[in-house]
C-alpha cells in the first residue's frame, strides 16, 4: 500500500496480544512460526500476482512448503489463494499474470507439500483441498476458453462454449460423486464442519467442543486481544475498497474470512491478528496522511494568505481545517498510545506468567506461589516405578509425559477419542465400575486436579461435564447420561442438593477425599469449596479401590494409587 501503512502494521503486529499469546516465550508454539510463514507466503503470492513472474511464484510455493511443514493451519492458506483467484475471475480481473502465478504456486506447492508425511496424498483426496484443485482446473478451462474466443467468430464460439460447459460440469459432478461414494475423496472432517457451522461440533463431537480454544470467540476477547484494531479494521476495509486492485481484493478476502473463522474458534484469533494489523495499518496511515497534509502545508499557506491579504473567509476555512486536523491527529495519537499500553498490560497480565506456576496475593500483599503442578509431577517422577501408568484427564497428558516421565493413558493428542472416552467413563462411574475400567486400562496411578482449596477454577470438577459428555459419546459408555449428573432442576451442583450419581462418582470422590474435614475459609463449615462457593454434599466416605498416594501442598494435584486386586479369600 504505502511505506507508512507497512510501518504502522509492523508496529501493531509487534505488540498485538492476539499474536503475542502464541509467540511469547513459554507459550511459544509452532503456530508462532507458522504465522510468519503464512504472511510471507501471502507477500510472495501478491508479489507474483502483481508481476506475473514465475520466479516469485516459485518462491511463493517454497514459502508455502515451509508453512505446510510448520502448521496444520496451512489449509487456510491453500483455500485462501484459490479463493482470491476465483474472486478475481468473477470480477473479470483474471489475467495472464494471475494464471501464471496460480498455476506455478499450485503445482509446485502441492508437489512440495506432499513430501510432508503428515500431508501425503491429502491434497488430491480430501475435500479441504478440493477448492484449490477445482480452481486450478477452472483456470485451465478459462484460459483455454479465452484462447478459443480470441481465435473464433462469436457465433461458433457461443455454441462451443455452451456445449463445453454442460459436458465438463456434468463430468465433474459425476466424477466427484463417484469418488466420494467410493471413499477415495475423504468426506469433510469434523474440524472443518465446525469451522463452517459453529454448532456442528457441539452436537456431534464433544471432544472437539470441549477444548476451550475451540469455543466461539466472545466479543470481549476480540477487544481484549485486538483493542482498537477491531474498530480500525472496517476503516481499513473501506480504504481497500476505495482503491480496488488485485492485491487489495486479496487483503479484503483475507480479512473477511479471518474474521469469520476467528469468530468460530478462539484459536484462530491468531490468523486474524496479522490481517487486523495490516488493515488497521492501512487505515491509520491513510487517514493520518490525509489530515497531515493540512498540518504540513498550513504554516506556509496561512502566511501566504495573510501576506497577500486575500479574503478573510479563506483564512478562516483553512484555520478550521487545521483545527480538525489537529484534533484528529491528537485523537489518533491518543488511540495509538492507549493501544500500546493496553497491549503491554495484556501481555504482562495474561500471557507472560507461566500457566504451570500459579501465583496469588495473600492478605498482607505478599506473593504466594503455587508450584503444585511441578511438585506433584516431580514426585511422580522420583517415587513411582518407572513403568507406572498414569490416568488423568487428557489435558495434562503432555505435561505428565514431559515432566513426570511416566506413561499416560491419554494425552493432548486427541486423535483417538474412544480412549479418551474410556477415561471419561472411568471418571464418571462409581468406584466399582471405574475399578473394572482401570484394571482394563492397566492403570497404576490416577491424577486429578482439584482447585477447591485454593480457588483454582480450571480444575477437573469444572471440566467434569465434558468428561461425562465425551464418556457418553461412545457405545461402551451409553449408560452414562449427562442428565443424571444434574439436579432435577437442571443444575450442576456439588453440594448437598447435587445428584447422587455425581456425588458418588470416582471423580467427585477423588477430588473431595478427606476434604470434608478441612476448613478453607473462616466463618464457613469444613469442606467449603472455594471455586464453586458451596459446602460439598458428600463429606464422609472412604475409598475402597484407591489410596491417596500424594497430594500437593495446596491440594491442586492429587494422585491416587490403584490398589491391587485383593488376594482370594481375604475378602
Amino acid at each position: 500500500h504505502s511505506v507508512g501503512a507497512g510501518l504502522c502494521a509492523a508496529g501493531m503486529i509487534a505488540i498485538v496480544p492476539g499474536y503475542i499469546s502464541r509467540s511469547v516465550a513459554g507459550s511459544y508454539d509452532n503456530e508462532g512460526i507458522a504465522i510468519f510463514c503464512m504472511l510471507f507466503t501471502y507477500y510472495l503470492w501478491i508479489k507474483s500476482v502483481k508481476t506475473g513472474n514465475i520466479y516469485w511464484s516459485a518462491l511463493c510455493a517454497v514459502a508455502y512448503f515451509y508453512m505446510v511443514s510448520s502448521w496444520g493451519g496451512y489449509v487456510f492458506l491453500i483455500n485462501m489463494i484459490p479463493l482470491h483467484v476465483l474472486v478475481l475471475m468473477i470480477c473479470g480481473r483474471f489475467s495472464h499474470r494471475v494464471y501464471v502465478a496460480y498455476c506455478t504456486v499450485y503445482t509446485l506447492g502441492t508437489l512440495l507439500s506432499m513430501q510432508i508425511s503428515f500431508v501425503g496424498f491429502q491434497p488430491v483426496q480430501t475435500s479441504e483441498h478440493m477448492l484449490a484443485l477445482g480452481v486450478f482446473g477452472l483456470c485451465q478451462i478459462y484460459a483455454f476458453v479465452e484462447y478459443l474466443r480470441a481465435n473464433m467468430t462469436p457465433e461458433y464460439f457461443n455454441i462451443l462454449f455452451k456445449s463445453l460447459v454442460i459436458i465438463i460440469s456434468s463430468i465433474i459432478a459425476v466424477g466427484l460423486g463417484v469418488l466420494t461414494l467410493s471413499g477415495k475423496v475423504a468426506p469433510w472432517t469434523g474440524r472443518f464442519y465446525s469451522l463452517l457451522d459453529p454448532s456442528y461440533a457441539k452436537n456431534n463431537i464433544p471432544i472437539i467442543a470441549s477444548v476451550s480454544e475451540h469455543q466461539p470467540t466472545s466479543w470481549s476477547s476480540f477487544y481484549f486481544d485486538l483493542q482498537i484494531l477491531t474498530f480500525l479494521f472496517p476503516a481499513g476495509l473501506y480504504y481497500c475498497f476505495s482503491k480496488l486492485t488485485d492485491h487489495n481484493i486479496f487483503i479484503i478476502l483475507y480479512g473477511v474470512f479471518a474474521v469469520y473463522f476467528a469468530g468460530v474458534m478462539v484459536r484462530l484469533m491468531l490468523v486474524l491478528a496479522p490481517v487486523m494489523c495490516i488493515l488497521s495499518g492501512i487505515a491509520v496511515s491513510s487517514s493520518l496522511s490525509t489530515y497531515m497534509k493540512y498540518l504540513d502545508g498550513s504554516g506556509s499557506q496561512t502566511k501566504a494568505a495573510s501576506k497577500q491579504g486575500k479574503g478573510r473567509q479563506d483564512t478562516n476555512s483553512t484555520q478550521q481545517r487545521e483545527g480538525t486536523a489537529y484534533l484528529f491527529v491528537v485523537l489518533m495519537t491518543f488511540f495509538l498510545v492507549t493501544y500500546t499500553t493496553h497491549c503491554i498490560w495484556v501481555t504482562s497480565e495474561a500471557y507472560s506468567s507461566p500457566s504451570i506456576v500459579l501465583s496469588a496475593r495473600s492478605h498482607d500483599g505478599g506473593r504466594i506461589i503455587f508450584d503444585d503442578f511441578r511438585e506433584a509431577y516431580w514426585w511422580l517422577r522420583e517415587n513411582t516405578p518407572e513403568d507406572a501408568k498414569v490416568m488423568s484427564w487428557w489435558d495434562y497428558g503432555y505435561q505428565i509425559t514431559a515432566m513426570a516421565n511416566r506413561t499416560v493413558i491419554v494425552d493432548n493428542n486427541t486423535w483417538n477419542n474412544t480412549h479418551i472416552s474410556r477415561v471419561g467413563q472411568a471418571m464418571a462411574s462409581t468406584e466399582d465400575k471405574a475399578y473394572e475400567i482401570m484394571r482394563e486400562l492397566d492403570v497404576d496411578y490416577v491424577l486429578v486436579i482439584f482447585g477447591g482449596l485454593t480457588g483454582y477454577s480450571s480444575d477437573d470438577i469444572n471440566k467434569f461435564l465434558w468428561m461425562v459428555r465425551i464418556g457418553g459419546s461412545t457405545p461402551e459408555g451409553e449408560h452414562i447420561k449427562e442428565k443424571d449428573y444434574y439436579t432435577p432442576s437442571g443444575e450442576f451442583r456439588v453440594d448437598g442438593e447435587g445428584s447422587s450419581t455425581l456425588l458418588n462418582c470416582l471423580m467427585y470422590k477423588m477430588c473431595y477425599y478427606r476434604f470434608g474435614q478441612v476448613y478453607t475459609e473462616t466463618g464457613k463449615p469444613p469442606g467449603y469449596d472455594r471455586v464453586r462457593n458451596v459446602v460439598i454434599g458428600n463429606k464422609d466416605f472412604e475409598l475402597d479401590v484407591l489410596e491417596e498416594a500424594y497430594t500437593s501442598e495446596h491440594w491442586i494435584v492429587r494422585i491416587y494409587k490403584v490398589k491391587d486386586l485383593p488376594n482370594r479369600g481375604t475378602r
Partner: protein
Amino acid sequence: DRSVDLSSQLVRINYKMSLSNTGSSGAVKTFLFGLEPSTNDKVAFIGAAVGSSDKTYLRVSETKVQAHMDKTFYKIELKDAISAGGSATVNVEVVLGGAQEMYPAVITQKEKQFSRFIGNLYAYLPYSVTSQTTTVTLPSSNLESYTKTKPVSVQDTTIKYGPFSNIAPFTAAEMSIHVENNNPMLVVTNLLRVIEVSMWGNINIEETVDVKHNGAQLKGSFSRYEFQRENSGVSSIKSFKTLLPAAARDVYYRDDIGNISTSHMKVMDDAVELDLRPRFPLFGGWKTHYVIGYNVPSYEYLFYKGDNHVLNMRLVDHLFDDMLIENAEVRVILPEGVTDVVLDTPFPVKRMPNGKHFTYLDTTGRTVVMFQSVGDLTENHIQDFQIQFTFPHRTMLLEPLILVLAFFLLFLLSIVYVRLDFSITVDEGAQAKMKVAGYCEKVASLQDRRSALYQAVEDAMVKLKASKDLSVFQAALKKVASDHKNETTAISELQVTIKNVNQDLGEKVNELQRCDKIYRDYQAQQAVLVEKLVTGKLQKAAYLDQEATLLKKKTEIADKINSLIRAF
C-alpha cells in the same frame, strides 16, 4: 573410655585410649586398632588424634596381620614412640554409616520411627584392656529395649556401661539398643560434583544430588490432610540446610523441570547457608534429585607461579548435617591446553581416565580429571584435594583471537562482496544515476566555495566600514573575483557534462549559474554603495535605504540558490 553417639543417622564411636607399653625394652611406634567383623564393612571414616584441645592427626592405614587373617586392622602410627614402660593417650574416631537398622522397617504416616543398633559391648582390640566404659548417647529418651549387662545405668538420653575390668583381646558381646529415632535418615545415593575452572577468575561448581530417605518406609497412603493438620509424619524430611563457601555467588537450586521455588539463602560471615526444601516432603523410601550450583572467585582456590598452577579445593562439600554419601564422583574441568596434570587427594579415591569437555570456542577440548569415591563419605571427609597442572598464560588469548579473526573475516568478506558486481547485465540507468549524483555533489561543493567567497566579500565590507581603508578592500575584492571566476568556470564545465547525461539536471545547473550571477551583481552593487559611503559620496540615510532594497533582493536570490542546491 568409649562413647557411642546414636543421635543421628550415623554412628559415631569415639575411643579414648590410654596406651601403655608394658614390654621391657624397645619403643612402640605403631599400634593396631581393630573393629568387630560385623561393623567392619560399615566404616565410613576412621581417624586418630593425639591431644584434646589442639589435636595432632595421626596416620591411619589398613593392614592385615599374619596371625589373624580373617580380621582387618588399622595401623596407627604414633607421633612420639612410647618407650618401654611409658604410656600415651590416643583418640580414635570411627564413623559408621548405615549401622542403624530401622525396626520396624515399615511404618504408617502416623507412627514414629524406631531404630536398632547392634554393636559390641567391648572394644574389639588385639590387646587386653585393663578397664573400659561405654557411654551411649541416644537420639531420644523413648527407649524401647537395650542390653542389660551389668553394671549399667540409664539417664535420660544416655546409657552407661561399665566399668569392665581386664577384658581379653577380641572379646565380643552383643549390645543392642532399640530407640525412637526421628532424625533425618537422609542419604545421598549419588553425588556428581563438577568443578569448572576458568582462567578468567571464576570457578563454577555444580553438584547433582540424588537423595533418599533411608528411614522406615512409608506404609499405606500419604494423607496431606493429616500431614498439614495433625502434624503427623514426624520422621519425614521437610527441609535441610546446606553450607556453601562464603564467597559463593549466583547460587541456583533447580532440577530437570526448572527452578525449585522453595529455598532461602542466608549470607553469613564464614559461609552461605541455604535452606533447601525439596519439592515435596520426603517420607521413608522416597527420593528426590536436584542440582545446586554456584560460582566462587578463583583467587581463593587457584594458586600459580609462572605457568605452574595448583588448584586446592574441597573434595566434597557440606550438603546437610550428618550427611552420608554413598557414591560420589568429582569431575574437575581444567582450562583448555593444560599439561602435566597431577592429582593429590587426602584419602584414597578411584581415579578414572581423563575426559574431554567442549564448550564455546574450544578447539582441542578441556581436560577433565575424574575420580570416584571409595566407600561412604561423611562430614569428616570434607577435606581439600590438590591438582597441579601447567598452563601457559598466553593460551588464554587464543579464544579472543579466534573471535577477532572470525569477525575480521566476516567484515572482510562483506567488504569484498559489496564491492563486487555479480550482475550479468550492466545496469546503465543505475550507473548513470550514480555518475550524475557524483556531479551534483561536485556542483554543490563548488557552490559552497562560492558562497564562502561571498562571505569573504561581506566581511571585507564590514571591515571597510570600520577602517575606511579602500586599498585593502580593493585588493580583497580582486582576489575574490579571480577565485570566483575559477569556480564559475568549473561549474560551467560540469554543467556541460551533466547536460549530456541528464537534460533536466543540466537545466537546473544553468539556472543555478544564472541566479548566482544575479547575486554576484547585487553584491557588486552593494560593494559600490559601501565604497561611496566610505568616500563620502553618499549620505548615510540614502545608503541605508538603497542597501535595504539590495539586501532584500539578495536574500530572495540566496533562497532560490539554496532551494536549487537542495533539489539536487
